[in-house]
């Protein structure tokens, strides 16, 4: 497998400029002759689709939601990073680049991350021009806040609804193009497969979620912007429908899957309350600006938080990491929470929770300031838990949240299948083994607004495609495969629901492939996952028909892919015999519990190649060469 990252030559800071100059262009009048398909209309997909149409390409966009405005990006709360240095606190492109590579525990590609930092400033400009109502100071300029893993204030936000406002900005740009008939928007359509002809991706097959119809769509290039796979853990902070289907099926058609084991567990979520739980709700990391995290010093201390005196509280993040304190990166904060709970000092009925306490900042700043900063988050917390966080500390616990892994892409965001590009959370490119807060929105919009509009032209200009129709045999074959898959799911007629299988898989993943991983657990998962999969194909029940809107069938189709993909994830976690970032192998830690990397053996990307269901995939590697950064032990002390 060829994993040439195609990183341009020249000094790091010149690479993107050089590349933009060297790329081939397409004459404006010819652009409309090219069709580009964009699957997914979250931040990455909507921004890409709108930008393509503005350039003059012919675009078709797809989402399984009923409107592009509902994509999972809408749920992002805290903010978006950009190296604007508006606060005059020492920020720069270099610092954002450095923080991101370090935050990712030195497992990302230097050139990609540097480009991300470079275009970050343009994103804020673009969004403001669209009318995104970012928070402002009294003088009328933009306000910033701090996020984990950084010592500067570079996070732009719109109350606790930053993702919503950014997505609505991208959505409005997209809808403008829909209104101009430059984008054809397909809603409630799920991508089932990609179609590869003569070695290039030439289209997709979809299922209409209302009529069940399987359809083919031809294009000159395809972009997947279909988000992450954190729902492989069943309970996560992701929206209910988030799934791995599009990227996994592309993987089965030859796209390498990179670093699937890099999954992020977010430290501040509302703890599980019972078996009925369908999702875990995130409490934005921005809360850690003003909230202090603690547990009782003594095991099994069941007193009310207010009755536990200061000296019997352990503000463990402030104690262990005095310089970053409550704003330590996510992986470190999550593991520390697990550690204190494993020691028996956890709170809440289950013992799996820690306090996030605002008493001190309410005392210092006044309730109204806290209310203005986090009012909607506090309300959401109260609605779910029935407790008032102005009066009693929040209870939080880590939950599966984000996936750094994804389809392998080169510097141009193209996968190992020529013509198939991958954007946003769906690709693996920028966050290494751990993503810093407020960097996913930045990456999704960087990919969509400022990277792919250039690089796709370069691809199209150099790859003339023949005219083909949906009657091409490869399309017919892919349609037949998708139809077969649906028929098979409908005809098992067993006794267990798709949700029951998903829950079972999630438990195996959380227990063995979650926050702490070890060889025995991973090997166990590799035995358990195929067992669940086998039962799935023998004992699944799907009610209704294919020809009508069928939520059970939708779910079964997605769970089927999770059940195969989970195995790739576990293989990756087992083979990466080191700890780095969010991938914590218990065998590899310093005496104080910090992750111990093994740069000699693992300073590379692992890109997995499909070899058949149940077979061990092939592990290919792309070495990570650091020419500008010195690999160091990550320290936040």
């Amino acid at each position, binding site marked *: 497998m060829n994993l040439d990252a195609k990183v341009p030559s020249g000094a790091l800071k010149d690479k993107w400029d050089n590349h933009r100059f060297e790329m081939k262009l397409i004459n404006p009048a010819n652009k409309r002759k090219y069709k580009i398909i964009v699957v997914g209309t979250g931040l990455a997909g909507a921004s890409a689709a709108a*930008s393509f149409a503005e350039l003059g390409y012919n675009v078709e966009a797809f989402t399984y939601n009923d*409107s592009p405005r509902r994509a999972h990006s809408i749920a992002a709360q805290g903010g978006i990073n950009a190296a604007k240095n508006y606060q005059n606190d020492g920020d720069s492109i270099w610092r954002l680049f450095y923080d991101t590579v370090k935050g990712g525990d030195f497992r990302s590609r230097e050139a990609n991350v540097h480009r991300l930092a470079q275009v970050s400033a343009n994103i804020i400009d673009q969004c403001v*021009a669209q*009318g995104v109502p970012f928070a402002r100071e009294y003088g*009328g300029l933009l306000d910033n806040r701090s996020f984990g893993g950084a010592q500067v204030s570079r996070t732009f936000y719109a109350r606790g*609804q930053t993702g919503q406002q950014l997505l609505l900005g991208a959505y409005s740009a997209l809808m*403008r193009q829909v209104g101009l008939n430059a984008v054809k928007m397909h809603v409630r359509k799920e991508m089932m497969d990609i179609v590869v002809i003569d070695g290039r991706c030439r289209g997709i097959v979809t299922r209409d979620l209302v009529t069940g119809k399987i359809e083919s769509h031809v294009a000159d290039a395809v972009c997947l912007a279909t988000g992450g796979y954190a729902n492989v853990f069943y309970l996560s902070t992701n929206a209910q429908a988030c799934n791995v289907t599009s990227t996994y099926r592309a993987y089965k058609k030859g796209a390498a899957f990179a670093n699937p084991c890099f999954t992020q567990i977010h430290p501040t979520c509302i703890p599980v309350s019972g078996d009925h*739980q*369908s999702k875990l709700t995130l409490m934005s990391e921005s809360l850690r600006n003003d909230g202090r995290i603690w547990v009782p010093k003594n095991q099994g201390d069941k007193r009310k938080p207010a009755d536990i005196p200061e000296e019997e509280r352990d503000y463990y993040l402030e104690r262990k990491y005095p310089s970053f304190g409550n704003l330590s990166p996510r992986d470190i904060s999550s593991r520390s929470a697990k550690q204190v709970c494993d020691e028996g000092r956890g709170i809440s009925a289950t013992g799996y929770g820690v306090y996030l306490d605002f008493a001190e900042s309410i005392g210092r700043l006044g309730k109204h300031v806290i209310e203005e900063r986090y009012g909607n988050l506090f309300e959401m917390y109260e609605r779910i838990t029935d407790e008032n966080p102005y009066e009693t500390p929040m209870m939080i616990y880590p939950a599966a949240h984000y996936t750094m892994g994804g389809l392998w892409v080169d510097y141009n965001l193209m996968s190992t299948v020529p013509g198939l590009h991958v954007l946003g959370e769906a690709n693996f490119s920028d966050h290494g083994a751990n993503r810093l807060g407020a960097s996913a929105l930045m990456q999704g919009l960087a990919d969509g607004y400022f990277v792919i509009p250039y690089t796709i032209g370069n691809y199209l200009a150099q790859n003339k495609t023949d005219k083909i129709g949906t009657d091409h045999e490869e399309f017919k074959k892919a349609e037949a495969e998708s139809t077969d898959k649906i028929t098979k799911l409908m005809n098992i007629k067993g006794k267990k629901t798709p949700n029951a299988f998903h829950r079972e898989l999630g438990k195996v993943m959380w227990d063995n492939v979650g926050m702490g991983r070890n060889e025995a657990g991973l090997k166990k998962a590799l035995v358990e996952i195929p067992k669940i999969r086998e039962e799935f194909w023998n004992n699944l*029940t799907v009610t209704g028909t294919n020809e009508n809107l069928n939520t059970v069938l939708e779910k079964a189709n997605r769970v089927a892919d999770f059940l195969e993909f989970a195995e790739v994830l576990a293989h990756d976690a087992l083979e990466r015999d080191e700890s780095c970032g969010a991938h914590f192998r218990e065998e590899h830690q310093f005496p104080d519990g910090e992750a111990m990397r093994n740069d000699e053996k693992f300073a590379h990307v692992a890109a997995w190649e499909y070899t058949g269901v149940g077979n061990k995939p092939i592990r290919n590697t792309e070495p990570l060469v650091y020419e500008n950064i010195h690999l160091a032990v990550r320290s936040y002390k």
Partner: protein
Amino acid sequence: MKIKLIVWRQNSPTDKGRFETYNCDEVSPDMSFLEMLDILNEKLILQGQEPIAFDHDCREGICGACSCTINGVPHGPEKATTTCQLHMRKFKDGDSIYVEPFRAKAFPVIRDLIVDRGAYDRIIAAGGFVSVNTGGAQDANALPISKHYADLAMDAAACIGCGACAAACPNGAAMLFTAAKISQLAFLPQGQPERKKRAIAMIKQMEEEGFGACTNYYECEAACPKEISVRFIAKMNREYMMARMFSE
């Protein structure tokens, strides 16, 4: 808790539809309304019956997908709360609850509790944007915006496009939704160049979609999970009048 659910079932857009009754016996007060439906659905599937179809995704009250009318009120009885954030502790043991789709002429039922809200997307496509292409923007701080207007714009922009306003309105009007977007952009300097054109185009589209007119019932504001204020409707009316009088 024991809860009796009386749920609208409709197989397809052309099916006439009917209410069906279901008994939920083990409802925990900590469950969300949708989690109660999840559990009922799991039971139905195991009995070989088709589950109740409903729209949902984020379950955090932000995506605007969930859309049931509960006891006659879009998103149910709790103020400023979407269906997905409504918890069963707000009901009493033994309660009977009616569950229906959002009803408005412009929102045809697709199945059970799922309706087609594509009309809202088309209203946005008619003018709910600033026509700036990617790449041409000036520095974000080049144009200061007073915090007052930025905050007002944000108040309007908080709309999640769920459709509760139209479902709550006796006239099936989409005024609050349309007004929120028109107001957001009218408060900001970026929205000025297309201000008049936008108001006219969006209102025209709204009427073409079959939404009714506003006769000041204010049911929309009461049902809105994001508490978007009807003041924005007044603003929209002013915007529209000015646009009509002084249109270019």
